[in-house]
């Protein structure tokens, strides 16, 4: 069992190094937000702890864990999406400015 877990860990870490080493510095902040959101997966452990029926203390700890992990999942994915939405290329910008960009800070004098 343990060896199998080590396998999974090592391969996943290796994959992580391969992929994340190629993320450009441009997106390093979204990357941190994204890995944060994904590490909210500890929610699956929290759910079992909170709903396992192992007494009030364990359930309460589980409840707190579910609350913090859910906060990270919801907040993390939302903020990653918001941030990535801001990264535009020049040509996208021209399109967006002309089309459906409501005046937030696009009060450019023309």
């Amino acid at each position, binding site marked *: 069992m343990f060896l199998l877990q080590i396998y999974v860990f090592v391969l996943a870490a290796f994959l992580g190094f391969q992929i994340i080493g190629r993320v450009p510095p*441009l997106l390093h902040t979204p990357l*941190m937000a994204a890995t944060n959101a994904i590490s909210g997966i500890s929610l699956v452990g929290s759910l079992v702890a909170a709903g396992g029926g192992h007494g009030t203390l364990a359930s309460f700890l589980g*409840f707190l*864990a579910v*609350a913090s992990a859910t906060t990270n999942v*919801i907040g*993390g994915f939302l903020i990653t999406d*918001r941030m990535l939405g801001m990264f535009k*290329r020049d040509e996208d910008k021209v399109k967006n400015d002309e089309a459906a960009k409501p005046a937030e800070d696009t009060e450019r004098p023309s």
Partner: protein
Amino acid sequence: MNETFIQLAYIASSVLFILGLRSLTRPDQARRGMRLAALGMLVAIVATLAHQQIVDYRWIAGGLVVGVIAGYPLGMWVPMTAMPQRIAMALSLGALAATLVGVAEYYTRIHEATGLGRGTAIALGFEVMLGALTVTGASVAFLKLQELITGRPVTYRGQNVVTGILVVVLLSLFGMLIARPDNTFAFYGLIAVAAIFGVQLVMPIGGADMPVVVALLNSYAGLAAAATGFALNNNILIICGALDGASGFILSLLMSKAMNRSFRNIIFGAFGSGPTALAVDATGDRTVRSLSVEDAAIQLAYAQLVVVVPGYGMAVAQAQHQVRELAELIERNGGEVKYAVHPVAGRMPGHMNVLLAEANIAYDRMYDMEEINADFERVDVVLVIGANDVVNPAARSDPSSPIFGMPILDADKAKSVIVMKRGMAAGFAGIENALFYAPRTSMLFGDAKATLTKLIGEIKAM
């Protein structure tokens, strides 16, 4: 059957997570990719709710509701300028979840006599130790970044001795836990001491070193999640923890490389704690030329190629929107504007890019250090906004400088340099910046936002 279904769902989720992370290598695909990852999360959660060990949904429902209510504003309303502290807070919360799961698991196994093997005890020990130190460490980082406590390094005599003692205590408690997995004193003691250790680790670290620390804590939080997976025998936790840990580790390596400093130096070195003899060529005849807004406006309006070097000062002044407005004016006059971003500019990896993107600046105008350094000789005007150490040529030329060897943006090679700065105070590292005294450099003193606004008005009036 049920178990098979859950495992299949977890495999699907893992694939979606990996696709999501891979999409971050391509800015134009990143958003769609991360939505796939969010879908993966939903799949994993729904599948877990069908788990047969779950017998009571009341606590779960409560936790989910609280999490959604707290998470939504943290995702939608936190301004981009607050990103560094937002990330630190998320690290703290994530580690808290992992730690609490570890405690709940340990408590259940001890009290329900379901047995606690040595392997599980080791995994739980790692989980709560890394978790607890990340909770407090990231909290201190949050307080520093939010400026609720000083961002300067907090040091005291014998600090490294205390750190050493804490490490020894942690190791002994861990040893006790391995020797007797049901030793509750060792388990809970491990949590308490690790929590103190987290504070001890981050307090001495100053603001400009935060990118490394935040990345390092990210790595710890990932490892804590992976340890949870080992303890609960849950592969998806192991996979996500490993990915997260790898990401944090790579980022901290990149950051410390960009500062030309080792981990050990950052964590135990507390820059500026001992004033090093820096008076190398501080021979009184160095003068600084200051420039009027009018002259700067003329220079910028007629420049062919302008490179903006943003730094933490731009973030503090929240001047990114004015930067964009100025750039648009320069472009209207026929010039070209590029942005040169140093890897450690700001308070976290990629900080400047997010701020510039927020101001609606296209990402194909932003250049990494390696991409743009060769171009500086062709640049008419470099506009340094609130950056200091990352453009200090002493890093290239002065072996006695504390930042010697650090890769910098070669702004000094440009035809002219305008430095926007609040005053003549030295940078974070407390080092004189030779660029400010260079013959081609002129200083434009004042708050970045106010000065930029004046510049914009001046160019418009021309």
